[in-house]
């Protein structure tokens, strides 16, 4: 077979092929006539799609919105990123999550989140609901492994009212015993709901990966720990964590920083700046392990295959952000055909496409302050449940050996699109709060783009080899899995050459 490589910047690409050795080919003298019978990865020319050179970022990404930051006298950090959007979103992030709870009262953060709806010192439950709906506010509280986030979105004219409600709910909620008992009933009933299987798998992955550390415990707690929650326990938890140095307040949208700072000082200036000793700062230890939950009553088998990954401030953080976009996600309706062009540069999709009755796949990169997880979630009908974890392990091992230039370009373009499409005030506020907490500064998107633009495929391979080659795994399986799941050692063998698939 003869090959003609395209005479354009892309001719610099190394295009590996199963049937053609490119290293000895003079691109200008060979011609390839692709046919329908061409093997999956025997490449013909790529079209010239004007790919940017390494180190060059798209013009749009060179620009960032103005950003302002202050610290109040009590240590609370205040930041804003104004824009002309006719809304304003306030994000209050507190460094208090599951990892700061105790085993006895695991789930207290989530319990507290539900309790806040029941009223504060200034407002009864119905008054709180009325005040929010009268100004058309969207209000949300989210508890996570390391953070609790309060967010409220209103029209700019209602900024003062919004910050008053935010301060009231976060700092002055009522925790009387009747409310606590009512909420306990509701929380225990909620624990029996496992409809969100994806969340269920992720909870189990954390549990098996970080045994004996609170970060591995479920956010909602369990039947025993929720029963142990007391009024004193709640007050202790709040006294320890709801202190100014652990808080960040961010405003995005139509806001004036000076006015916002003044309101923050008025409502949050009295928050105390010290509390009792806190727990949860010890580093979690990743334990290679596997958890299986058999349930023959469900149709689909679900699997989580996860690896230890870099933390937020690790030097390999961006490389793994690229890896997550490289792996992407898979939906049969969109991707399910052999020889589909997506598959030509995505081995994972090719292997999933060969599995009958495959459900869905998502890849995740979940960094924390001192650890992280990278991995895959996959679901299939029961008889194919054997093959999905193998495809995920194969694809991850392949990334440690060889990252195609085309894969790198696709991941990079996806990253650029993600950076440019982040125009939702809620997610902007959360992003700023996370960056201020973990990286101690706002990272402009031009800097992220610059770092990504120089990502070299060979360097990425080295990073992935360091983390993902011959390493321990955290595995979770759920569903009618009786005949499908293998021993941990079998899966562990797929992370190196000892167990070829």
């Amino acid at each position, binding site marked *: 077979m003869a090959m003609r490589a395209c005479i354009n910047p892309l001719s610099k690409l190394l295009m590996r092929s199963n049937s053609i050795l490119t290293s000895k080919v003079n691109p200008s003298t060979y011609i390839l006539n*692709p046919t329908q019978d061409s093997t999956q990865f025997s490449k013909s020319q790529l079209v010239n799609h004007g790919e940017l050179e390494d180190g060059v970022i798209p013009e749009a*990404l060179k620009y960032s919105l*103005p950003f302002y930051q202050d610290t109040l006298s009590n240590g609370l950090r205040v930041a804003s990123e104004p824009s002309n959007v*006719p809304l304003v979103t306030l994000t209050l992030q507190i460094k208090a999550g599951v990892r700061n709870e105790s085993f006895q009262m695991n789930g207290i953060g989530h319990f507290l989140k539900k309790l806040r709806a029941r009223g504060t010192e200034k407002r009864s439950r119905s008054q709180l609901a009325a005040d929010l709906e*009268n100004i058309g506010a969207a209000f949300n509280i989210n508890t996570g492994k390391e953070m609790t986030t309060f967010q409220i*979105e209103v029209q700019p004219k209602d900024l003062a009212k919004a910050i008053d409600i935010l301060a009231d709910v976060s700092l002055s909620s009522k925790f009387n015993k009747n409310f606590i008992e009512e909420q306990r009933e509701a929380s225990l009933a909620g624990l029996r709901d496992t409809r969100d299987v994806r969340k269920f798998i992720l909870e189990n992955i954390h549990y098996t990966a970080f045994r004996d550390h609170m970060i591995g415990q479920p956010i909602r707690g369990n039947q025993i720990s929720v029963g142990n929650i007391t009024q004193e326990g709640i007050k202790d938890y709040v006294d320890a964590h709801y202190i100014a140095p652990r808080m960040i307040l961010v405003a995005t949208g139509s806001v004036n920083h000076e006015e916002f700072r003044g309101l923050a000082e008025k409502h949050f200036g009295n928050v105390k700046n010290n509390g009792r000793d806190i727990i949860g700062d010890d580093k979690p230890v990743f334990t290679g392990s596997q958890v299986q939950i058999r349930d023959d009553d469900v149709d689909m088998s679900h699997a989580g295959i996860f690896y230890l990954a870099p933390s937020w401030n690790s030097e390999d953080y961006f490389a793994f952000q690229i890896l997550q976009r490289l792996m992407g996600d898979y939906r049969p309706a969109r991707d399910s055909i052999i020889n*589909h062009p997506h598959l030509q540069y995505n081995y994972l999709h090719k292997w999933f496409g060969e599995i009958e009755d495959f459900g869905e796949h998502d890849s995740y990169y979940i960094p924390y302050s001192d650890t992280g997880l990278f991995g895959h979630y996959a679901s299939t009908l029961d008889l194919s449940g054997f093959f999905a974890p193998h495809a995920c392990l194969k694809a991850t091992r392949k990334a440690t050996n060889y990252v195609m230039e085309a894969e790198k370009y*696709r991941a990079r*373009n996806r990253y650029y699109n993600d950076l440019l499409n982040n*125009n939702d005030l809620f997610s902007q506020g959360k992003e700023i709060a996370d960056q201020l907490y973990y990286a101690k500064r706002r990272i402009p998107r031009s800097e992220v783009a610059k770092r990504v633009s120089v990502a070299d495929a060979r360097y990425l391979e080295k990073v992935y080899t360091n983390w993902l080659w011959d390493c321990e795994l955290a595995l979770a399986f759920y569903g009618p899995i009786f005949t499908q799941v293998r021993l941990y050692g079998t899966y562990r063998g797929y992370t190196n050459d000892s167990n070829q698939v």
Partner: protein
Amino acid sequence: MIRRLIHSSFKPLPNHHPIYVKDFISSVQKSKLSNGVKIITESQKFPSTVNIGIVIQVGTRDDPIGYLNIYKELFLKSRIKADQMHYLVLDLLGCNINLLIERENIYINTSCLEDHLKHVIPALKHAIFHLKNPEDTSEAIEKFNSKLEPESKEDSLKNFVLPTSYSNKTLGIRCPRITECKLENDDLEKFLKKKFTAEKTTIAATGITDHKTFESLVAESFSNLDKGRLEFNPAIYTGGTYRENIDDNDMIYMCLGFQAAGFFEHDMATFTVIKSIIGDGGGFNIGGPGKGMRSRTFTKFLIYDFLKTVKSYNHAFTDSGVFALSLVGFEKYAEYMPEIILNELYDLAYIQEEELNRAKNIITREALINYQRSLSRLEDLAKNCAFFYNTPDEFGYLKKISQVSVEDIRRSLLNMFTSQFSMIVLTDKNTKIPDLETIYKRMGRK
């Protein structure tokens, strides 16, 4: 060098100086190609991706056979290598393409960097319009039919509102099972050639720096489309009854629909406010502050112990609209349910200003949330231009919402009560529920 650049998010990148700029007010421009393709663009508010939306004014109301469902199965799945090269371009450039088949149009959107537009536009045009009829049309039909899973009862209730209201024609055409018709190999191709024409095509983009440049890129690819002509099959609201016998643990699923306003009618804003006042939900465990707990669903409807779920719908199309309320409850109390709906709607005529303002504030905030999202603005731009060659005026819409008064609500309620009703009931065969004639009689209507 590479290692130093890519790693370490802690420390600022050496010698990197971000450019801080404020965002600015965007402007909208529109134009038409000589063959009738409409183009509308919104300039950048702030440097971002370019979002491209394409509307083709062919929807399920024009497709009783179900060709569009086969089209959706075959979209981006051609086995022909030349086609796959176009898909490859879209994939490598990080474009995530979404295709929606709706009642009045199909809508495709994607996003890319502005530098990549000259590659994306031809690839998109090829992917959308050059769907050759491959031999596996029958495979696509089989796949589509196999995916038609039994709906939940609540989905059935929602999905029967329009077929009942429009007697299964135009806006009421249900998603068909494509087994009855024997399709020839070129039937799909003929359908696409006839329907996917230049006059029916609108291309919208947000985040553009220059409208003329975008227009010339579009012209290179789209100027060879057949002009075609715009056809319009007006929808006629008829009302009617649909009843299906089911056995579901003593529950009844019931929906009552009324003729409402089309998208550009004056009362469209009023129906939007009515929907916001009623809200929807089921059970008091769901929700919390700021989650609609003060809507009439919770303050009036769910006070009745035998009701489990309440939902309100406001379907607005170019030339017609339907407003509907559905209830799920115990079938023992079935005979009271139509009366509950009508009484609570009648009660809206005496709404207080505080409650009305609360509903308006919620709509305003939701509209502004959509306004900040470029994909929502893109869809708004594309559809306004497609159907009316208008530039959407979000703030004009919000002004209309703010001007809705109690008198407007009373007028709309009167129009609803004097229209033909649509009633959808899913319950046990022995359950007695008043039919429409009985309901009209009780209302004093002829």
